[in-house]
């Protein structure tokens, strides 16, 4: 008998808000977190805007010891530790300094690349012949699993503690991996999530690929335009999202607040065959992933009330919508409500999946669908597929019973999860 899995805690460090309550307000108010960065202008980037969570020194000191803060230059660790620690506390779990590890709790916390600024510092020292000046923190701040290692030590987790990496599907994949571990009875609780570093050394490669918008440097909050006729590339972001997944019996036994149930999901790849490539999705793989996620969750296509899409604000948005209409066999007025968080946060890369999972769960728990920012004029190809009132441009109050969340990533990889209101 497989275990049922629920979400009992969440934390988030997003470009438009840090902290769960702030984020819950920000997405309802459709607040943009996209800003202009003079540093990117000075470095001659085409796209000089981006999304970074705003973290004060005071806030940092609440999460890190003075010793941990010495030489801390990994923005992904900063965002991941803040969101992960918040999720743990939000779930009503305690942090004990001494005693045994918590054998029943584990961590799967992904990233794309970690500690880029720390790595740059190390490279400069090494090239100057000063390797011995790196100190003790260079390795732990730049190893991919640095984020799960930091959180594991702070929280004292004794179950599996690891980091996954799968480009922009990372966070959604982490959730599914944690879900399966609890479902199979191997852990009672899993902290799942993902983080992404910020800054020119993370975003530069995308700028070079010319897939970022270059015409909105004067109007940063208007730049990220998923689903819209003027979508001209994704705005790079950063941050972290975290969720505590828990065995339903364990959650009930300790009287935990339950945000929603995770019914299941699927991950797959298009093998970079057909129209699939390193950077584009194979459409059959996407539709198969959606179909399999529903089947694994025992959900009919007609039961889906809302979709939180990947929808990055490139020309691929209409292809994604077409894949949804085919997988669900629903279109026009019959299509579920759909939204993209990226209009407000930009594309937070390896953090996008987890931040958007947090936003999805908030919508189910608080019974609303946030509006799509910068989507006044829907792309004509999308309007041919689904009715425009399926793409709310303002927050609407709505009880969601079942929500589908998808993330797609470089390497032609897909992840879809199905969430359900609890109790239904």
């Amino acid at each position, binding site marked *: 008998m497989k275990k049922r899995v629920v979400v009992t805690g969440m934390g988030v460090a997003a470009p438009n808000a840090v902290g769960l309550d702030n984020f819950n307000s920000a997405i309802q108010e459709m607040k943009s977190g996209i800003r202009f960065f003079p540093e990117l202008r000075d470095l001659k980037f085409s796209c000089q805007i981006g999304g970074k969570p705003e973290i004060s020194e005071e806030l940092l000191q609440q999460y890190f010891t*003075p*010793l941990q803060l*010495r030489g801390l230059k990994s923005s992904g660790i900063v965002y991941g530790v803040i969101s992960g620690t918040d999720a743990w506390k939000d779930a009503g779990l305690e942090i004990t300094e001494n005693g045994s590890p918590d054998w029943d709790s584990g961590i799967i916390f992904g990233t794309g690349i970690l500690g880029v600024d720390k790595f740059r510092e190390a490279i400069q020292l090494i090239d100057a012949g000063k390797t011995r000046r790196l*100190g*003790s923190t260079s390795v732990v701040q730049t190893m991919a699993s640095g984020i799960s290692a930091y959180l594991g030590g702070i929280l004292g987790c004794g179950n599996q503690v690891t980091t996954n990496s799968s480009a922009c599907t990372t966070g959604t994949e982490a959730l599914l991996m944690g879900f399966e571990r609890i479902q199979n009875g191997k852990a009672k609780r899993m902290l799942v999530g993902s983080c992404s570093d910020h800054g020119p050394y993370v975003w530069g490669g995308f700028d070079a690929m010319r897939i970022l918008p270059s015409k909105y440097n004067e109007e940063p909050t208007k730049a990220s335009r998923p689903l819209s006729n003027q979508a001209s590339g994704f705005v790079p972001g950063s941050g972290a999202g975290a969720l505590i997944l828990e065995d339903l019996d364990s959650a009930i036994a300790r009287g935990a607040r339950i945000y929603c149930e995770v019914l299941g999901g699927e991950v797959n790849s298009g093998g970079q065959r057909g129209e699939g490539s390193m950077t584009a999705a194979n459409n059959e793989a996407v539709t198969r992933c959606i179909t399999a996620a529903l089947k694994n969750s025992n959900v009919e296509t007609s039961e889906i009330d809302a979709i939180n899409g990947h929808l990055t604000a490139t020309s691929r948005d209409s292809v994604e919508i077409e894949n949804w209409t085919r997988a669900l066999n629903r279109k026009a007025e019959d299509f579920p409500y759909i939204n993209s968080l990226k209009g407000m946060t930009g594309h937070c890369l390896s953090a996008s999946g987890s931040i958007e999972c947090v936003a999805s769960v908030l919508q189910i728990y608080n019974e609303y669908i946030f509006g799509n920012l910068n989507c006044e004029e829907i792309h004509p190809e999308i309007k041919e597929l689904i009715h425009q009132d399926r793409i709310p441009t303002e927050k609407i109050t709505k009880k969601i019973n079942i929500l589908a969340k998808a993330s797609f990533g470089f390497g032609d990889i897909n992840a879809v999860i199905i969430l359900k209101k609890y109790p239904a």
Partner: protein
Amino acid sequence: MSEKEILTRLKTIVKPYVQRMEGLNDFQENTDFLNDLEINSANLVDVVLDVEDEFNIEIDNDSMEGMLTVGDAKSIIQRKLSN
């Protein structure tokens, strides 16, 4: 530089790394970095770098390996300062 001043500066340097405050309250030449102050052994390289910056000296790997107590560190610093 007087021995007392070296010890005072050393105490300030090691303070952020100390996990056993009783050890810091009784900071003297016999104080052992790992046992009395419970400094994480990985952090010893950071202590050495901080000492190098504070006294404007360079501590080679051989010297570092002999640096187990506050007294050891003091002697190494004195030796490097007189070079």
